[in-house]
């Protein structure tokens, strides 16, 4: 009796075990494939629009065989995540304005590329904390259908109440062009209103924005192109690309002189794939990429050899 009882318990246990193990194994029938080794991986976070980073990244992959993972977002968010997670989040920050990278200097690992000597002297970064790869003039745009008479001609248009509430302007914390434009305004019109002190101009400008401010620089072009805003502040390349795609905008290089800022890249300190990040920087500084950016993406190169006619004017 006891023996048969034990046998029954044993049988139940075996059946239970088998059915549990069978249900555990009953997974999908996919073939196991292995991802690339750690030394052929790279994670890049970028604030660049897709039309710029996709060809760059794919060409890099084709040439090196390194698998690139891209996280895209706006500069402020990406830098926030880098600050929070460090090297675990990404290896390289790409397409964030030099000022923003400078402000978060402690997050990055300095790297002096062998090609950095070929960068135009004005844009070289001493110490190599970050590496510039594009020069971006900041321009004014307007909707060419809606604004026919008296298009904006200079930076003072941003303070002109005629455009009040109709100015497309991106968050200066996230967009290099907006940040540069704001700096220009403060330098061009110091103490226009003595009562306001240093902040007078930005305040007047903020009032003229009438509370409208956009998250991405791409929003600025879209808003002006659609006619929701009449004028806007953006980087030259984006405006040129939109015009080439048939957007209803026109570019104004301000009569006071356009200002420029640099899009840069920086290696995140403590990242897992530092060597590959360096290779990527070297690749981007290479003539092929710089020429490609200039020809296809309407970007101005930082390389002396490729510098075209400059629109920049020191304010």
């Amino acid at each position, binding site marked *: 009796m006891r023996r048969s009882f034990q046998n029954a318990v044993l049988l139940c246990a075996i059946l239970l075990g088998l059915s549990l193990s069978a249900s555990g194994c009953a997974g999908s029938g996919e073939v196991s494939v292995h*991802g690339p080794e750690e030394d052929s991986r790279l994670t890049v976070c970028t604030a660049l629009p897709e039309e710029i980073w996709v060809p760059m990244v794919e060409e890099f992959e084709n040439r090196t*065989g390194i698998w690139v993972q891209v996280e895209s977002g706006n500069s402020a968010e990406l830098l926030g995540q880098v600050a929070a997670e460090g090297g675990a989040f990404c290896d390289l920050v790409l397409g964030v304005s030099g000022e923003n990278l400078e402000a978060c200097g402690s997050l990055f690992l300095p790297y002096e590329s062998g090609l950095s000597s070929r960068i135009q002297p004005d844009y070289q970064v001493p110490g190599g904390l970050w590496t510039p790869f594009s020069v971006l003039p900041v321009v004014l745009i307007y909707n060419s259908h809606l604004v026919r008479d008296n298009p904006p001609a200079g930076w003072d248009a941003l303070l002109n109440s005629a455009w009040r509430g109709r100015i497309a302007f991106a968050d200066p914390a996230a967009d290099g062009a907006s940040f540069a434009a704001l700096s220009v305004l403060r330098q061009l019109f110091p103490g226009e209103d003595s009562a306001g002190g240093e902040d007078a101009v930005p305040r007047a400008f903020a009032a003229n924005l009438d509370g409208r401010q956009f998250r991405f620089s791409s929003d600025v072009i879209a808003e002006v192109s659609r006619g929701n805003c009449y004028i806007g502040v953006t980087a030259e390349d984006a405006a040129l690309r939109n015009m080439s795609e048939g957007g209803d905008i026109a570019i104004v290089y301000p009569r006071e002189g356009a200002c420029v800022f640099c899009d840069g890249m920086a290696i995140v300190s403590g990242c897992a794939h530092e060597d590959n990040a360096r290779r990527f920087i070297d690749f981007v500084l290479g003539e092929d990429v710089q020429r490609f950016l200039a020809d296809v993406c309407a970007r101005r190169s930082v390389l002396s050899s490729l510098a075209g006619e400059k629109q920049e004017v020191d304010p």
Partner: protein
Amino acid sequence: MKAWLRSSFRRRIFVTVLLVTMVPVLFNVLMMQMQIRRSESAVAGQAKGQLTQMEEAFHQLCESYIRLSDTLCTSTAVRSPLRAGNGSSRVLYQVLFRETDALRDYAVFSFFDRDGHCLYTTREAPPAASLRTDWGVLYAAGQADGLVFQRGGETEGAVFQRGGETAALWAARAVRSYDGRILGYLAITMTRDDFDRFFGGMYQASGNIILLDKTWRAVYHSRPSQEAASVAALRRQLLGGEPLAGDSGEYDFYVIRQELTGFSLILEQPRAFTATVVRAVYQTSLLMSGLCVLLCLWCSWQLSRRLARPVHELDEAMGEVEKGNLEVQLPEGREDELGRLAGSFNKMVREYRLNLERSVGREREMNEVRIRMLQAQLNPHFLYNTLDSMKWLGVTHQVPQVAALASDLATILRAGISGGEFITLEQELELLDRYVDIQSLRFEDRFTCEIDVGERFLGCLVPRLLLQPLVENAIIHGVADKDDGYIKVWAEEDGGDLLLSVSDNGCGIPQDILDRLNSGGKIPGSHLGLFNVSTILRLHFGEDYGLAASSQAGRGSCVSLRLPILRG
């Protein structure tokens, strides 16, 4: 747990039955899972077969492209016009169309000059197109010796189209002069339509075929609307080290790497059992199993209750009996073994109760006899003293008979009231002798009494005054009226017992009294002595011992006492 099980018969039955009923349920679940796995593996095997077939076909295609590139790029008919840099060589066109004859169904073949301008093409309408030589596929071709394969990127795609379709796959090879300078490029392009035709019919319509480049960017997806999301998910899963599940999780993925190009060919096949179906099947089977278990629980509970209840009742009844409750009885409705067991138990308890009552009654009887004897002991002291006085009166008045009579009587009385319950047979016979002396005086020697007891019996212990009532009975009721009365007392051994017999030649005992004597019944009036002797023997030694009488009317009687042989 073990102790809990062992302590109860019912729990053991319950657990055993439950376990036994669980076996088919578990077996059922197991079989179902095996069935699901088997059909899944069958589907997987079929898919892998299809995938291998497609990979082989693609491999052959690529090989034929490579062979073609070998032929074309080393041909003088190609080199010379490219070196000249114009697009009007009829010979090159002839070579191009002749060599690509078998392959033009799936691809367009073109020659680009060293600056990336398209010079010759098998397309119907040659475009005025150019490609960058510092970027993309022509750059790669310039860096390599052989034919390089690349996915059609944004730039190349925009440049080179066929029927509105963007080129999905580019293969290019630099045409070099003998000194290694690049003269131009051979480019082979396949569009999505070309792939659709090429892979068409090689896989099931419900599945999808995906071609990815070395770093898992999409070259071709048979369902373009799903391309971006599906490939992005697969790439993320591969890089994250997760199993490939795509973006919806409703497909199985079978991957094969194409060695020649480094590309990966993926067959996306709807699951044989989607997660929903599997979940539904498992839920149903779980529900059924749950119901089965509940039913098993209920049945085994009932069964164990039915089986164990009579045993439990018997156990409880036994406990009651142990506590002294003899009134307990079990219900006897059942006809099986347990029913018979209950009947036997009831009978046993009844017997036990009767037995106890009998033994209590006997004890009471014994006490009554003892009380009677105590009462009887009161007078003899006084009588003994009186008899002693009478003896001395007889002596002083010269009446020796009176003196002897009184002396004998006193001896008998003293024996009756003093000492223990048992005396030796010798002492008993001595008392009997005295008694016979007294009766001889009374009956003027009209009888004789012969005592014939062997030496070996004299030491046996017998209850006191055992023989006296027998001899008295023989004298009073037997030989009293005769002149030649004869009484014989003898002892013998019978079956290990001592048999003391008294016989006479008197008138005999009437039949009814004889019957009562032999059955141990009480005789009113006379013969009380015999009855007392019988009772004493039975009380002392049990029902096997006692008195037996036989008689023949007018010829005498014989009364025998049976008692165990006890040595002092």
